[in-house]
């Protein structure tokens, strides 16, 4: 048996973000608490803090992307990092340079972290084995897209107003076999306590459910809708409708599109999500996309803050996540940077990064706990 989920390490110990399993449930929660701090920053007239001033974030997007790339770049800019941007076309990759040479060059140029997107599964892991700086997986083939799962969890947490998704019934619909979003979200949602069911035509099922911590998988969407607290629709690459795996997009839409009729079968206040961009008329109808429970817009907006949290955590988080907490002992230089930007902090304390902070006693929502996860 393949283990359902690899145990996550404490984010303070996290070296790379390659898979949702690098975070685990504690890591996911902690990362979301860090993101809470950046929400406030993002609403300022000048949404910028010097937390990563002097650091360089390399965005190596070997595969085309609009929202993920812009979102990472915006996150880096709001943290005052320099950005080194890279796309495969027009680079020496098209002259036949090997992937290893390309990424080691990026490291040599002074990058402090590499954000990697690639059409081939495993590239982020391969890059991590070749460089000595942290690597963020921004999507690798059919494998994983951990920051998408993180932003989706953040969006759900916002909508629910709850730290845990215990008992949340999620129905994920669509191209499960070829979806990195599905894989990362199944891992993340189940780690957060949700109960996930999968729906797809048989040809788009994962080869095996080993490593997919789900309740079940079926070809029949409608019976699941009446108990679904959240329906997560996956994007269908339209070329899948070309006849090899699906007879037609029309047939797919007839069986799996979330229409107003199907949405009406769901409980009141249920949520609808989609990683975008939506193929209206395929995964969901236009009227469903406009419904109040559809969170597509907030998913995009939350992308920036969770990616700020990821970059912050990987570049300065090793000094302790407590640094972002107003009640935690002061730790230089990151908190100083945040403080100077107006982030509230408590009284400075001794800068002892090795000692555990005392548990937070505050009850206000959106406040990170100072308790670090054990067993770093």
């Amino acid at each position: 048996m393949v283990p359902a989920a690899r145990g996550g390490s404490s984010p303070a110990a996290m070296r790379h973000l390659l898979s949702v399993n690098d975070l685990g449930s504690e890591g996911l929660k902690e990362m979301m608490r860090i993101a809470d701090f950046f929400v406030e920053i993002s609403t300022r007239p000048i949404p910028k803090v010097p937390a990563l001033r002097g650091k360089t974030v390399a965005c190596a997007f070997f595969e085309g992307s609009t929202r993920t790339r812009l979102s990472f770049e915006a996150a880096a800019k709001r943290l005052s990092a320099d950005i080194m941007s890279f796309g495969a076309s027009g680079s020496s990759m098209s002259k036949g340079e090997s992937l290893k040479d390309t990424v080691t060059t990026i490291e040599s140029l002074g990058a402090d972290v590499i954000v990697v997107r690639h059409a081939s599964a495993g590239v982020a892991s391969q890059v991590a084995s070749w460089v000595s700086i942290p690597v963020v997986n921004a999507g690798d083939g059919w494998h994983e897209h951990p920051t998408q799962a993180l932003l989706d969890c953040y969006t759900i947490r916002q909508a629910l107003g709850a730290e845990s998704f215990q008992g949340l019934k999620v129905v994920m619909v669509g191209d499960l076999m070829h979806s990195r979003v599905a894989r990362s979200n199944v891992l993340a949602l189940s780690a957060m306590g949700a109960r996930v069911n999968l729906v797809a035509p048989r040809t788009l099922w994962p080869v095996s459910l080993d490593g997919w911590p789900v309740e079940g998988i079926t070809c029949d969407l409608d019976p699941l809708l009446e108990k679904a607290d959240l329906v997560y629709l996956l994007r269908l690459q339209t070329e899948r409708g070309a006849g090899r795996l699906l007879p037609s997009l029309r047939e797919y839409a007839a069986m799996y599109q979330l229409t107003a009729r199907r949405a009406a079968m769901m409980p009141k206040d249920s949520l609808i999500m989609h990683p975008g961009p939506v193929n209206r008329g395929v995964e969901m109808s236009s009227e469903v996309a406009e419904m109040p429970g559809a969170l597509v817009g907030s998913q995009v907006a939350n992308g920036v803050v969770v990616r700020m949290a990821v970059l912050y955590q990987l570049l300065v988080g090793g000094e302790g996540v407590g640094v972002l907490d107003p009640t935690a002992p002061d730790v230089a230089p990151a908190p100083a940077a945040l403080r100077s930007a107006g982030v509230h902090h408590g009284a400075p304390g001794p800068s002892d990064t090795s000692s555990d902070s005392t548990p937070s006693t505050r009850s206000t929502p959106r406040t990170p706990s100072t308790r670090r996860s054990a067993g770093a």
Partner: protein
Amino acid sequence: MPDVLLRGGCVVDANGDRLADVLVRGSEVSAVGKGLLAPQGALVLDVDGCTVSPGLVDLHAHLREPGAEESECVETGTRAAALGGYTAVVVMPNTDPPIDSASMVREMHELRSKSLVEMAVAGAITVGRRGEALAPIGEMASLGVTIFTDDGAGVQDGGLLRAAMEYATGIGVTIAEHCEDASLAAGGAMHEGGWSSVLGLPGAPAVAEEVMVARDLALARVAGARLHLMHLSTAGSIDLVRRARADGVQATAEVSPHHLSLTDEALVSYDTNLKMSPPLRSGGDVDALRAGLVDGVVDAIATDHAPHPAESKEVPFIDAANGVLGLETALALALTMLAGTGAGRRAGRPPGRRSGAGAPACDGPPSSADRLTTYRGAAPASRALSIREVLAVMSWNPARIASLGNTQGGPIVPGAPANICVFDASSSWVVDPARFASRSRNTPFGGWDLTGKVVHTICAGEPVVLYGEAQR
């Protein structure tokens, strides 16, 4: 060439095991027995504690010459072979240009002058290995080619393969197949199963191999052909061969050292040195391959030595070249993994957990450094092989399949050609790819602690390897 006296070793060949000295004069064995006296000027090698066996024969080596000499050439590849205890290799025809004509066979025969061991050439079944028209099998056979394959791919067109088998049967040569249905394996980068699902890599299903094995066995029955099935990797394939042979089909089968040693679980590292075709399979498949060796359904271990330069491997996994080096590690892997002489693990690290039959175990998170999974086998049917059984599948069986029986694999008796391998079955060593004689380094076994080390290799009476060092 001086006479060579191998003193004090244990001679193991198809006739049995016995303590005896072996005297080599010229290109032949001149005497075998206890207390042989060294002729004047003879090279006397003390091989006390070592096994003295017929040289190993590899049915499946890619030496890349001509066309890809940056990866390997006849000289470096056969040096690697000699260091691995081989005295003969069959080179595959997927060179550039491919070996699909009499003139290419002649060109290859000219390269024999650079070879340290006996080099037999396999010819292509179809012109350009394109699977469209028969290559001049008869002309190539008249130059001594006895085995034909489009290795790298199977012949997809069943009608054409049937014709090839019938034609080959008329001439008395063997058709060898790389069994993989291209439409079923399309795009596959690893074994299709739980691990491909976890890793998000497109899978090549076991059935892609098995449908072609089944088709080829059925065709061989119709054509009355001699069929050799290369690098079988699945339990289903072994089962098909077992049943067809019981039914009288003239089929032989080989497996590779890596398919006997590793499972698809190792791919969690995305290490491109683990990318090969056919891919690493499940634990249950490994059990079946081992059981096939035990009960004789599998005739041979063949390396599928497939050198690639670093730039073909330092790329995304899906784009990485298929193949793994084999010649310099095959005997030690076989002895370690099959004969139970050692654990077979990365040096300095504790052995991993034992895997359950048919299910790979996970020893830890994929982010851990020690993730290469050695398969240690758990099938009750499996048992350790004796050293002689290992030699059977690495020396005399492959010699017979490649029709090299006149010079290779025969018992060590006076008058026999002196193709001899001397190894210490209990000596352990750590695989260091930087020290390979091969021009390439693409092995997943770097750092592995293996038991069984080749000491001397004698080819046609010439000591080409002495004390583990190539002599030319």
